[in-house]
């Protein structure tokens, strides 16, 4: 839902989107800011380009670095003056990660997020039940015999799991 599609090749702003597709997320180096759905819009104004980004987490320490990397990439590609605008609403959701982004996550060894539960009030449930009620597949061996080690992982956007079949730990990109 509400995934942003880059404009078709040949249209005026397509080259800008192409460059943005090379700007990687500093914390998940498998994905570009376009794959993650952070780029909401690219606009051409008289005084330069405006790139509209949506931040992922309130406290994501990579937000400012992403902004700088986007501006650097656009400048290096010779698109002239550009600015980044942060758009907070609607809030970013993992549902905006593209299909290609999900494939890249899996290849990188991170279990991609499932769809976000549309029910607003997630009911409280206590220890022992997996959040969505369904098992997560191991990104390495595909086994469904996995368990959550911790709801929080190395970055705000991930949680930590382990596979009981191949015995490897892996990360899961949390649906949010």
């Amino acid at each position, binding site marked *: 839902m509400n995934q942003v599609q880059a404009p078709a090749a040949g249209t005026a702003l397509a080259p800008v989107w192409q460059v943005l597709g090379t700007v990687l997320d500093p914390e998940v180096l498998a994905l570009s800011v376009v794959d993650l759905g952070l780029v909401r819009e690219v606009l051409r104004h008289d005084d330069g380009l405006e790139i509209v980004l949506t*931040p992922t*987490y*309130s*406290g*994501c*320490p990579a937000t400012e670095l992403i902004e700088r990397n986007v501006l650097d990439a656009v400048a290096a590609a010779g698109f002239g003056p550009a600015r980044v605008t942060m758009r*907070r*609403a*609607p*809030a*970013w*959701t993992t549902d905006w990660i593209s299909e290609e982004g999900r494939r890249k996550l899996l290849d990188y060894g991170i279990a991609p997020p499932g769809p976000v539960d549309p029910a*607003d*009030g*997630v009911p*409280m*449930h*206590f*220890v022992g039940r997996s*959040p969505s009620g369904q098992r997560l597949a191991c990104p390495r061996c595909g086994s469904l015999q996995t368990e959550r*080690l*911790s*709801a*929080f*992982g*190395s*970055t*705000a956007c991930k949680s*930590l799991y382990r596979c009981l079949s191949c015995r490897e730990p892996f990360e899961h990109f*949390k649906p*949010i």
Partner: protein
Amino acid sequence: MQASIQPGRDAATQYVLRLGDTCLILGQRIAEWCGHAPILEEDIALTNMSLDLIGQARALLTHAGQISGLGHDEDQLAFLREERDYLNPTLVELPRGDFAFSVLRNAFMATWLKLMWQRLQASSDTELAAIAGKAVKEARYHQQHACDWVVRLGDGTDESARRLQAALTALWRYTPELFSDDAVDEQAAARGLGPKWSELQADWRAEIGALLAAARCELPAESAFRSTGRQGVHSEHMGYILTEMQYLQRAFPGGVW
């Protein structure tokens, strides 16, 4: 020495500052666990939650500075106010205590914040609604995680249950402040800025009641004690945490890294 600033005194600014300070001070308290949590995964989880709260505080304080019209930025509001101008409820400034104390407080506050963010999504203030739309997703994870631990401790060993019950006894009398109202709440509610804090009470009691039952805890007797942090009248612990937070900006004005 960097001089103190006086924040806006209007109801809208005060309403947003109360929320911003709640996130800021709780975030700071949780961050004290960095390097001290009982296990590595929990160290990471606590610092993750702290990071979310500080991010929410940044957005709220920035917004409070804009509403007030006084031109204060997030750093000035976070680091250059006097103690009396911080408006968080006393509960969040209490020293972190043991792990059970921090976990139970996190469960109380994540539940409260989740309920608050849910309602703020309908705020007449579009920026506040946008901040809430992001934060409510984070608060759900915080609540889930903290509540898991509350049950695990309460329904765990004799020692963990004893500590959780002690934490509950210590914290419970600070919770009425989370549902007290004054003129700031009345005006915020009248303008559609956000709910009166008392509007969260029934839902909070229902969710926390279910949690404490699952954790086999006994609810302490209600007390007549009322804390007053959100009016700026804090516990003796507030001065110490502010000293630690403000030292750098006071000693090296405008210092950045």
